[in-house]
C-alpha cells in the first residue's frame, strides 16, 4: 500500500511538471529524488513530452501517465521543485507531500489573463525599441502585440489543431499592423511587426530543447526542437500571407 502511495506521489509530481513546461530531464531527476527519499532506491523512470513511465524497480509493474494538454506555468514547476527539495530533506510524509502537490495542481495561473496580455503588449513595444525602431512605433507595437497575443490565446482555446492558432494569430497581428499604418502613416511597419511577433516566439521550447538534448534526452529534445521549428514556421507563414496580399 505504501509503495502504491509513493508511486502516486512521484507520478503526480512528474505530471504537474510536464504539464507546465519543465524539461524532461528535470522531471526524471525530481521523481528519482522523491522516490529515493521515500526509500525506493532503484526506481525506473522515463519521461517524454507526452507521457511518464514509472516502475519501483526493474521487475515490478510499470505505471504510466499520459499527458495531453500542456501549458506554460513556470511558477508551478518551481513550486514542485521546492516540494521535492523538502521531501528530500525528509520534512514531508507521503501523505503531506500528496496534499501539497494537489494544492499546487489546483492553483490557478499566477497572473490573470489581462496582465499576461498587457505584459505581452508591453514586451512588444520594448522589442520594437530594441530592434532599432523609434519611440513613435512604441505605442502601435504595444497595441498590435496585445492583439496578436490575445488572438493566439483565444484561438488556442477554440481550435484544437496544433500550429494553426499561431498561424491565425500572426495573420491577425500583421493585419492589425497594416491597419495601424493606414490610420497613422509614416511608421515603419517592419519594426512594428517584428516587435509584436516576439511574444509568439516559442522561447520555452527552444530553451527546453537545448537543455534536454544536452542532458542526453534525445527523444524529448528533438521532439521539442521540431515543435519549436514548426511553430516558428507557422508564425512566419501567417505574416507572409498578409505581406503577399498587401505588398
Amino acid at each position: 500500500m505504501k509503495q502504491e502511495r509513493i508511486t502516486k506521489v512521484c507520478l503526480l509530481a512528474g505530471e504537474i511538471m510536464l504539464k507546465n513546461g519543465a524539461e524532461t530531464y528535470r522531471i526524471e531527476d525530481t521523481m528519482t529524488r522523491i522516490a529515493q527519499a521515500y526509500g525506493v532506491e532503484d526506481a525506473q523512470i522515463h519521461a517524454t513530452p507526452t507521457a511518464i513511465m514509472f516502475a519501483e524497480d526493474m521487475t515490478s509493474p510499470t505505471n504510466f501517465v499520459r499527458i495531453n494538454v500542456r501549458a506554460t506555468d513556470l511558477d508551478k514547476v518551481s513550486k514542485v521543485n521546492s516540494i521535492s527539495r523538502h521531501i528530500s530533506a525528509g520534512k514531508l510524509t507521503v501523505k503531506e507531500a500528496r496534499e501539497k502537490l494537489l494544492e499546487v495542481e489546483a492553483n490557478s495561473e499566477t497572473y490573470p489573463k489581462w496582465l499576461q496580455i498587457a505584459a505581452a503588449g508591453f514586451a512588444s513595444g520594448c522589442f520594437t525599441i530594441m530592434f532599432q525602431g523609434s519611440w513613435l512605433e512604441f505605442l502601435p507595437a504595444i497595441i498590435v502585440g496585445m492583439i496578436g497575443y490575445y488572438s493566439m490565446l483565444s484561438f488556442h482555446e477554440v481550435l484544437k489543431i496544433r500550429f494553426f492558432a499561431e498561424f491565425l494569430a500572426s495573420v491577425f497581428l500583421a493585419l492589425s499592423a497594416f491597419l495601424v499604418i493606414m490610420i497613422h502613416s509614416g511608421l515603419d511597419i517592419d519594426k512594428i511587426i517584428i516587435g509584436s511577433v516576439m511574444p509568439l516566439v516559442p522561447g520555452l521550447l527552444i530553451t527546453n530543447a537545448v537543455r534536454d538534448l544536452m542532458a542526453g534526452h534525445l527523444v524529448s529534445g528533438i521532439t521539442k526542437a521540431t515543435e519549436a521549428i514548426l511553430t516558428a514556421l507557422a508564425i512566419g507563414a501567417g505574416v507572409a500571407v498578409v505581406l503577399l496580399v498587401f505588398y
Partner: protein
Amino acid sequence: MLIEQLIVSFFSAVGFAIIFNAPVRVLWQSGTVGMVGWIVFVGLSRVYDVNIVIATLLASVIVGIVSQILAKRFRTPIIIFNLAGIIPLVPGGMSYDAMRFFVVNDYDAAIATGATVAMISGAIALGLIVSEIINQLIRNMNWRKYHSEYDRKGVASLDTD
C-alpha cells in the same frame, strides 16, 4: 542610447517572465538576465562591430552563466532565467527579413539571410552548452556559502538547485 536599451530590455524580459507565469519573487532577476544578455549583444554587435553570430554566442554564454548563478541563489529552475535571457537574442528581425525577401521573390537575399538566422540559432544553443560546461567547472569549485539545510547531498546531476 545604451541606457535606453538597458531599460527597455529589462522590461521586455519581465514581460516575458509574466507571459510564462514565472514566480513573482524572481521577476526582477529574470529582467536582469535579459538586460545583461541584451547589453552584451548590443555592445558587441552595434558598438564594437563584432560579427553578429559571435556576439550572439558570447551573449548566450553570459546569459547561461548568470542564469546558473541566479538559479542557485534563488533556488528556482534555471529555465526561467535562461528563457528571459535567450528570447531577445532570438533572430526575430532577421527571420522576418528572410521571409519578406521570399515574399518579394528575392531568393538570393532570402537564402543568405536564412543561413544567418540558422547560424544565430546555432550560436544560441552552443552558447548555452558552453555556459553549462563553465558552470560544471564552477560548481566543482566552491558554492558552499549558498547551500542551506534543504540541500541534497551526494547527488550529482545537471540540476542546478
